[in-house]
């Protein structure tokens, strides 16, 4: 998709290299206020990108999401690549950063990154609760659940329930009985 969003209040078009899948909702082009990516963003089908979500990408950053993802006021900060599978639920004030030291948005050319970090790969059906920080390079397996306010900087196996600071595995969704989270 190019150009603007019909409902947008922010007087700026979407960046040319942002692709918004069919039936996806983006609250505003304001999400790209701090966006300088030359590699682009591809949002899948039926994503909901809600108020306050920010895509803070440096020139080398890239973001790809699957289908049916929800971003509820989350921040993705990338100098590498963030790949998010389908059915992701990313909570309020969650930060997904593929680099630990993102340069400020106005940093001069050539100083957009402080180095370090690496790709973030999030599998299918991953639920990341409010205020969690995911720092790359890291991989989160399918079906995993990350509890509130966790800092994830180690690989998370499929189905793991991770919570606390420092983060630890506190259970598996494959053993959940009541269907209600404790996260």
């Amino acid at each position: 998709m190019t150009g603007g969003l019909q409902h947008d209040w922010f007087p700026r078009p979407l960046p040319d290299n942002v692709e918004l899948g069919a039936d996806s909702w983006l609250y505003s082009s304001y999400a790209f206020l701090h966006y300088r990516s030359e590699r682009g963003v591809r949002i899948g089908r039926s994503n909901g990108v809600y108020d306050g979500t920010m895509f803070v990408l440096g020139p080398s950053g890239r973001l790809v999401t699957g289908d049916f993802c929800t971003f509820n006021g989350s921040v993705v900060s990338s100098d590498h690549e963030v790949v998010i599978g389908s059915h992701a639920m990313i909570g309020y004030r969650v930060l997904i950063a593929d680099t630990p030291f993102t340069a400020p948005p106005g940093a001069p050319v050539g100083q957009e990154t402080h180095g370090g970090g690496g790709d973030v790969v999030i599998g299918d059906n991953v639920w990341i609760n409010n205020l969690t920080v995911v720092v790359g390079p890291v991989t989160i397996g399918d079906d995993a659940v990350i509890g509130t306010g966790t800092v994830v900087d180690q690989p998370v196996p499929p189905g793991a329930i991770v919570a606390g600071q420092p983060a630890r595995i506190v259970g598996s969704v494959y053993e959940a009985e009541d269907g209600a989270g404790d996260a």
Partner: protein
Amino acid sequence: MCHEHIRVGRRVLLGFDVMIADSSFHPLEPEARRQDARAITPTGDRRDRAPLTADPVVISDDVRLGARAIVLKGVTIGASATVLPGAVVTRDVPPGTTVGGNPATPVSGGDR
């Protein structure tokens, strides 16, 4: 974030950006969660959502919650307790206790 019941007592101090939730809002079981994820998308049907469960939260009188503290479902915080900034409270806090960390645990030293 209140699905059913959050009670806040008298003279309670809620610091900057405190978050209190009486529900997890999504199921843990993977298949139910995948269905829930579809149901909440722009084209999803909200009637397909998994039923929400809630556990009431009680913040008793004279409690102090530090900045960015988080109180999760089912928690009762006893009178005059203190929750330090950034703590994630997952269990009941006895009256007069100071807790901190994630998950929040009692902190020695008393007066903070």
